[in-house]
């Protein structure tokens, strides 16, 4: 006898929380608002198209054919960097599954001890020592985790992003650990491309004006005027941005940290991540390892409509791992018992024993209940501390932005 489970397989990206949009069956990941990204694309492609149409024929003949070739290579590089920045996972941290979330909650409760009635619980902060500096890790109420150092929650994408730099509307994505170097190379190469096109526009106009006169030149190549305008305004912003990020990279800082002033000022902590050497910092950021995405957007997961088996879509781990036996077609002699045993993992039974040894002595044991008993389950569910909301937390009550 074997049980028949009607399951539907979906890719994990379809069930990811957060406000991202996915394309190409999970291969592409972007923010929701993409309008400005299309503008960026249009400006770059449009300007380069004008350059190839109006300037290049003249310059290739009168100066050198390598000019359009180099422009084409630069243009392709800019495009590749832009698409790489926009389409890749910036380093999103997945939200905690229910067991992990309640485990953290219990640790917090244990650490806080008894809060007198009517008083707000203390803010949820964990102190860690990094390179002899104390860094505070904040708790994220949306993702239910303590954010790793340098991570921040992007409110536009509604995700915690590792080494969060900023959310860039021009590329339509967050800039974080995984795509920062592509973003930097994009701004750098775009600066070069803009300067290149601007320079050769001027050269072209000058050369033509010598023969035909200035006004005639402008009439013959109207595209040049447009290009010069776009390049002029782009130059100031993009070159400035490249310079700013070069400065940040040499200090191994993120835009987020710079804006918040995390490492500046006398009384503040010094940047514990900097190697105190500009070359080393640059090398780490630009030539460091290529971090993998931890989201597994294209992995498969099962959605079972049958409640007994409740392979809940929030608990995808049993289905994604290739070693999992619940997907195997092996039928056991005690199949019936096996089915009853395979239930959705519940939050761990209430235990007041924190992992910290200091608190062990001060916490009293509560009676353990076996997960098998439904009665005990109810009481343990009632004892589970309600997952706190920002309103109950003193720190969150102070107006703060992510």
């Amino acid at each position, binding site marked *: 006898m074997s049980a028949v489970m009607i399951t539907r397989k979906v890719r994990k990206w379809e069930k990811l929380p957060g406000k991202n949009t996915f394309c190409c069956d999970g291969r592409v990941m972007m923010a929701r608002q993409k309008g400005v990204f299309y503008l960026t694309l249009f400006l770059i492609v449009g300007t380069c198209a004008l350059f190839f149409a109006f300037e290049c024929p003249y310059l290739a003949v009168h100066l050198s054919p390598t000019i359009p070739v180099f422009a084409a290579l630069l243009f392709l590089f800019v495009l590749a960097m832009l698409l790489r920045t926009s389409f890749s996972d910036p380093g999103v941290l997945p939200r905690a599954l229910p067991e*992990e979330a309640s485990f953290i909650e219990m640790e917090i409760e244990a650490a806080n001890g008894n809060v007198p009635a009517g008083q707000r619980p203390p803010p949820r902060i964990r102190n860690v020592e990094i390179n002899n500096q104390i860094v505070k890790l904040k708790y994220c109420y949306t993702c239910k985790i303590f954010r790793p150092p340098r991570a921040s929650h992007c409110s536009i994408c509604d995700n915690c992003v590792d080494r969060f730099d900023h959310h860039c509307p021009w590329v339509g994505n967050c800039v974080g650990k995984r795509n920062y170097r*592509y973003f930097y190379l994009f701004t750098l190469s775009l600066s070069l491309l803009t300067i290149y096109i601007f320079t050769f526009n001027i050269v072209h106009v000058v050369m033509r004006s010598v023969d035909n006169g200035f006004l005639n030149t402008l009439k013959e190549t109207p595209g040049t005027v447009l290009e010069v305008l776009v390049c002029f305004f782009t130059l100031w912003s993009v070159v400035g941005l490249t310079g700013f990020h070069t400065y940040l990279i040499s200090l191994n800082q993120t835009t987020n940290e710079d804006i918040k002033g995390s490492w500046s000022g006398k009384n503040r902590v010094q940047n514990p991540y900097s190697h105190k050497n500009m070359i080393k910092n640059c090398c780490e950021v630009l030539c460091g390892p290529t971090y993998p995405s931890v989201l597994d957007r294209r992995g498969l997961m099962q959605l079972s409509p049958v409640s007994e088996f409740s392979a809940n879509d929030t608990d995808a781990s049993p289905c994604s791992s290739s070693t999992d036996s619940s997907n195997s077609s092996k039928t056991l002699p005690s199949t019936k018992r096996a089915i009853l045993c395979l239930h959705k993992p519940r939050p761990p039974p209430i235990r007041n024993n924190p992992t910290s040894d200091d608190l062990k002595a001060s916490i009293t044991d509560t009676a353990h209940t076996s997960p098998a008993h439904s009665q005990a389950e109810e009481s343990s569910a009632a004892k589970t501390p309600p997952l706190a909301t920002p309103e109950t937390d003193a720190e969150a009550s102070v107006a703060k932005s992510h």
Partner: protein
Amino acid sequence: SPQQIICLHLTLSPFHNLQELRHSASLANKVFIQRDYSEGTTCKFQTKFPIELESRIERTLFEDTVKTLNNFYAEAEKIGGQSYLEGCLACTTAYLIFLCIETRYEKVLKKIANYIQEQNEKIYAPRGLVITDPIERGMRVIEISIYEDRGSCGSSSGSSSVSGSTAR
């Protein structure tokens, strides 16, 4: 006492392989080994032995597993000659080369997956434990699931529980 005998039985439990574990045991608890940030943002896990595992596995085995995993991650994230070469070469191809070849990190992740699989089969499953690959939890925690044998335990509640407190 009967409770002590039951505890002893479970430490010599008959979970011969991972599949048998998942089919005939029920999940009792989960322990989460947190990240160790003392050296910065590189991936490293705390080697502190959790109380919940005291009655289940020897401390040295657990520490060996975590230390080996930490070494794997350190190898993957090492910034040195090879990573510079990889980065610079990839840059010249506008990173298109990564569509064809595997990065060093991905290679190490495969080694880690194999290692965890092997550890689960040889050491952890016979003790009623299962380690989840950290990459499935966002590289935030090493999740260790603790299973209880339902059949032989019967209705004795709490005696076989994973907390060290009941063993006193």
